[in-house]
């Protein structure tokens, strides 16, 4: 900007104020866009120890991990985080769409963590033992249907169990994502998750089967989520084995539900392997699927009326 100003003064016009010079200064980096400047000022104000301005990612992370469990996915959580970091409440305008960004951050974080745990670190602690033994084998060592089902279950179990601390708040999170403004992003995340799960479960197709398989997984994910919220119990049910530590998650019903949906002859499995011959019972298949969806919605509605939301 100094050069521009000197030139301007020399030329005797307001050249340094014309769009041309400002554009040039912006390109050369001497003129910073406003928000970047302001954020460094605020960081100086808080005396943040890291020395780097806090990114939006880090803000959302801290909020979701520390404040949401107490205050829910709400603006109270956002305000508490701002207070903790010493930022003024005006900074909440940064989180433009409000608490739904916390939900979205969490979903992406969950996907990344599940991927890291299962693929990079080979850490299967969150998966049921029976499922683990099948899923950890190589694809050619067991029946492909059984192996795929095990892999799908393993991924879903890890993801859902990571989410466990938020189970009581999840209806609120879903309600936020279902608002019309936010549904498109939610759908994008859903398709991204379905893509990851399909890849993990061994999908390497390069034709229409690619789409069929992801279309099969996405509703499965949605329904299981609803079932998972709806089967939250305050006290463990009688038929659960107390000694098994996995049951501290209280989600055995959800996995029974998923296994039922992934039953050998179900629509989901038939979409996954379009070329396998099954006895075709087309209309009743769709009815069974509709019945399962109806069941999960009914369970969710019951939970809603019981006052979870």
């Amino acid at each position, binding site marked *: 900007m100094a050069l521009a100003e000197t030139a301007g003064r020399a030329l005797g016009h307001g050249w340094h104020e014309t769009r041309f010079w400002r554009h040039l200064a912006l390109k050369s980096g001497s003129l910073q866009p406003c928000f970047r400047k302001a954020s460094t000022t605020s960081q100086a104000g808080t005396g943040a120890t890291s020395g780097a301005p806090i990114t939006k990612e880090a803000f959302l992370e801290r909020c979701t991990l520390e404040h949401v469990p107490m205050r829910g996915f709400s603006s109270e959580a956002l305000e508490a985080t701002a207070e903790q970091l010493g930022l003024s409440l005006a900074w909440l305008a940064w989180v433009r769409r409000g608490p739904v960004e916390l939900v979205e951050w969490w979903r992406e974080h969950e996907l990344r963590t599940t991927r890291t745990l299962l693929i990079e670190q080979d850490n299967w602690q969150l998966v049921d033992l029976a499922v683990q033994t099948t899923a950890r084998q190589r694809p050619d060592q067991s029946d492909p249907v059984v192996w795929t089902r095990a892999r799908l279950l393993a991924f879903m179990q890890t993801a859902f169990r990571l989410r466990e601390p938020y189970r009581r708040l999840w209806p609120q999170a879903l309600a936020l994502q279902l608002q019309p403004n936010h549904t498109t992003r939610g759908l994008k995340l859903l398709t991204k998750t379905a*893509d990851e799960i399909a*890849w993990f479960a061994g999908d*390497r*197709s*390069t*034709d*229409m089967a*690619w*789409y069929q398989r992801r279309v099969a997984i996405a509703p499965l994910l949605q329904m299981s989520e609803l079932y998972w919220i709806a089967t939250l119990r305050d006290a463990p049910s009688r038929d659960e084995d107390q000694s098994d530590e996995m049951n501290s998650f209280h989600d055995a019903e959800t996995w029974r539900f998923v296994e039922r949906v992934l039953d050998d002859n179900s629509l989901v499995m038939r979409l996954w392997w379009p070329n396998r011959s099954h006895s075709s019972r087309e209309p009743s298949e769709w009815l069974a699927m509709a019945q399962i969806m109806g069941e999960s919605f009914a369970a969710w509605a019951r939970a809603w009326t019981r006052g979870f939301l």
Partner: protein
Amino acid sequence: MIRVDHAGEIGARRIYAGQLRVLEGTPAATVIQHMAEQEEQHAAVFERLVVQYRVRPTALLPLWNLAGYMLGAGTALLGREAAMACTVAVEEVIAQHYDDQLRELIAMEKREPTPEGHPAAGAPSQSPESHLRQYIRQFRDDELEHKDTGLAHGAELAPAYRLLSLVIQTGCRAAIFLSERI
């Protein structure tokens, strides 16, 4: 990029299949067979790349399958020269498209040179862009060779050569445009 190339090679395979179906047994069939085999190789490479880079295949694949076959069979029905003209037109568009992609890949590589040991690279010292570039360069040369073969076998003698060529080229460009997005 890989998505549209994958779709293109599969479409080309179907065009030759259509042409062979109609022109079976004629002397032109050997020439087309040879070109079809090269396209098979190209298609196989792209299938591998689609899996390696986890690319979403184009949703219009069934459409291109059908359209390619119809185009091949249709031009072959108009005669041997028309089939050659179809080949020339398609190969011309594809060669231009590959050239554009090569330029884009070079630009991408200049902007952000990939660090060594990138997980998607073929060899440790190769970036994915240069890896892809090698394939595309080779395929472009193959396609130009097909175009020359087509011209040598009398493509320009086809009925309404200019019109046929124009229509086919426009169709190919539209297909490329769509497959890049859908």
